[in-house]
């Protein structure tokens, strides 16, 4: 029982370590991955937004430059003046379509890159731009619209300033010379550039693939780092395991793990000592029991001998003396005296038989004279006759094997105790006994058809006598290094006992 508890403790700690580390690793990795994914999605969005903003700014710069370059062309509504700056702008890879309109929204020029197909999104963006410019003639808009796949940027085409009369002659506005620049602008028209959707898509894909790459790198690095951390973290637990296994390892670790470790260490030491003491006591008890049983048998043997050799002999002599009491005075003995003599003789005869039975019970003579099998046969025969029982006894394997007296007497007593229990408690009509010697074991099987009992609770509920008898059987079994392999009883179903002994070792003479 104690060994079982210690084993369970060890198992628990091993299991704790084995899955604990894995669980911590999985939890940490899951948390880190989730957090990384959340932040990474935000970063991707931000990164993409930055790229788009940069593209928009660059687009605005290109558009403003173009607006400045096409001023003359817009002013004079001269397509020949518009074409050169428009064509040179179209040479830029990202530029897809250029639209030039006047103040009223009238299209002056629209050109696109032939290598790129027109995008529905961009056409809609350009139409929206024209509509907006028509609605806001007095304002100078800088238009920027980004759909999913297209970027349309518009800029106003302006005359640099309205001239005062003096400004025909002078650079500055002479009315307000303290203000270095005072340039009211006049709107001439608008320029809109539609930028290639592919650039936007590529930028998005590029950002995404960069982040996927980063994620893979992060995964590998995080796994390694987490693994190292977890291993470091559960090292005290591993030491604890070693401590439990070895029971003598001192572990230094901070905090609660240290306390746990020390508590476990102390507990294990105490348990080990206790189990050791218990085992020792158990051994001592077994030894004492063994000695007790031996002493008991020796005493029985001595008493049996004394009874047989001494008391029985004396009683026999007394009986003989009683029988020959009136042989020398036959005529003087009356009938009554002779009758009394005869009674005394019978009583003495009874005493002698009783003493002899007692002696036989204490030490069956057949055990030493005829061997275990014959002694048990005689016992069963006598028992059956005395108790009106049908006892079926069969011994096998003892033809060439005769166990020593210690084994024989204890085995004999076990059978004797079993039969006594049958007589007292079982109320059986039949008993079956098998004693088989088959190297390396000797098997003893005792079955009856008695009233039976609840064998699960036999020790707690059994009567005092039965309990003692059963305990004697168990003690003698252990004394012989045997094992009660089966002790089964069902109410109304009889009782079955199966005991297995190892072959007894021959003692050196």
């Amino acid at each position, binding site marked *: 029982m104690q060994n079982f508890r210690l084993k369970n403790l060890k198992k628990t700690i091993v299991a704790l370590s084995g899955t604990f580390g894995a669980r911590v690793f999985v939890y940490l990795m899951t948390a880190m991955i989730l957090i990384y994914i959340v932040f990474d999605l935000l970063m991707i969005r931000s990164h993409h937004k930055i790229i788009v903003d940069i593209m928009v700014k660059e687009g605005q710069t290109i558009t403003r430059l173009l607006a400045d370059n096409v001023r003359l062309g817009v002013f004079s509504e001269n397509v020949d003046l518009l074409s050169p700056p428009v064509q040179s702008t179209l040479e830029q890879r990202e530029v897809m379509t250029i639209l030039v309109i006047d103040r009223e929204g009238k299209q002056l020029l629209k050109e696109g890159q032939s290598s790129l197909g027109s995008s529905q999104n961009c056409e809609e963006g350009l139409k929206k731009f024209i509509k907006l410019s028509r609605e806001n003639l007095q304002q100078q808009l800088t238009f920027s619209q980004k759909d999913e796949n297209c970027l349309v940027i518009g800029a106003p085409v302006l005359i640099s*300033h309205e001239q005062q*009369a*003096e400004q025909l002659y002078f650079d*500055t506005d002479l009315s*307000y010379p303290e203000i270095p620049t005072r340039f009211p602008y006049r709107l001439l028209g608008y320029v809109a550039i539609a930028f290639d959707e592919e650039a936007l898509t590529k930028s998005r894909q590029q950002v995404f693939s960069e982040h996927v790459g980063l994620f893979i790198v992060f995964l590998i690095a995080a796994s390694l780092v987490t693994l190292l951390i977890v291993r470091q973290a559960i090292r005290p637990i591993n030491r604890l395991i070693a401590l439990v296994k070895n029971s003598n390892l001192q572990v230094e670790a901070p905090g609660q793990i240290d306390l746990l470790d020390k508590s476990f260490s102390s507990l294990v030491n105490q348990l080990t000592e206790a189990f050791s003491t218990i085992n020792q006591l158990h051994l001592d008890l077994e030894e004492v029991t063994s000695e007790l049983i031996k002493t008991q048998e020796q005493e029985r043997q001595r008493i049996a001998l004394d009874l047989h050799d001494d008391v029985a002999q004396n009683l026999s002599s007394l009986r003989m003396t009683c029988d020959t009491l009136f042989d020398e005075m036959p005529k003087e003995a009356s009938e009554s005296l002779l009758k009394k003599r005869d009674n005394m003789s019978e009583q003495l005869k009874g005493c002698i038989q009783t003493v002899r039975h007692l002696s036989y019970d204490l030490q069956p003579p057949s055990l030493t004279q005829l061997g275990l099998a014959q002694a048990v046969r005689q016992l069963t025969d006598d028992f059956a006759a005395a108790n009106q029982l049908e006892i079926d006894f069969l011994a096998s394997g003892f033809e060439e094997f005769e166990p020593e007296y210690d084994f024989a007497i204890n085995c004999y007593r076990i059978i004797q105790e079993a039969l006594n229990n049958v007589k007292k408690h079982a109320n059986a009509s039949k008993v079956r006994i098998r004693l088989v010697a088959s190297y390396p074991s000797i098997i003893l099987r005792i079955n009856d058809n008695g009233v039976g009992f609840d064998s699960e609770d036999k020790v707690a509920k059994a009567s005092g006598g039965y309990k003692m008898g059963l305990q004697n059987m168990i003690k003698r079994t252990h004394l012989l290094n045997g094992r009660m392999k089966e002790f089964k009883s069902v109410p109304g179903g009889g009782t079955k006992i199966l005991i297995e002994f190892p072959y007894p070792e021959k003692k050196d003479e």
Partner: protein
Amino acid sequence: MLPATLTRASTILFLSFCLMMAAQRCWAYNIVVLQTSQAAPYEKSLEGFMSLAVTPALKKGQKSIQADSVKVIQLNNQTRGRDLKRKVLGHRADLVLAVGRKALLRAMDLPDNLPIIYLLAPGGKSLSQGQTNISGIEMDILPARQLAAFIEILPSIKRLGVIYDPEKSADIIKEARSIAQLNGIELITEKAHSAREISGLIFGMAGRVDAFWMLPDSTVLTPNTIETMLSFSFEKQVPLLTFADKYLNLGATVSASFDLYDMGVQAGRMARKVLGSPSKKLGAAEHPEKVSMKLNHKIAAKLGIVVNTASLSLDL
């Protein structure tokens, strides 16, 4: 206690001094200068005006023009008409000098018996048309003088192109045509009614002109058309002849412009004349007498033109 004699003498001296101060005032003309702003061109021309206008008595029995009798009023948005009138009349102005177009416009609200001379007011003549008390120095150099100057600088010019708005510059062109003819130069003209037409008209002159003449015509000359003209000059290798120095910096070849100080001097001379005449009647508006010729050497070199630098006032 001072002796009575001394006291009497001091009193007489003091009174005499006061009288003399008053007398000086009585003998100086009061001039009010209305200045549009403190811009450098105005200051420069005012300096010129002051250098000549301030003078002792012009004739016996006449008043002088003293520096401290010239009151300068800077116009700003807060100066109201009534305030201005009060200031001018309070100073008992004998003459008003309006420096700048804005000053001229404000001066035109003053009583019409007050002589007003304008300076650095573009289109002053047309603005003050019908008002006999207003005259001044125009900002345009006479076409004859300009053409004469251009021909002297660029003797190889035979065909001179010019674009103008008939509503604004017809008179100039009429005068210029006759002068050009006299000098053996063909004046090739194009009329424009809006600035939009300029680019087409000027590039249409390519191959037909040896030089292009920029007129101070506000219809023709706008920032965009200036760029067009400059583009034409560069692309077609045609020198640009202009009337103001600022276009030289932008890429014109030769400028025939006025000198600010000299204009001021000229206005001062006009002021002395009108104050000196009994009727205080102003003469007709004048054009700048002195012409300042300037050349942009880099542009000239790029255009590969031959320049007579002897008449240049200043090389750029």
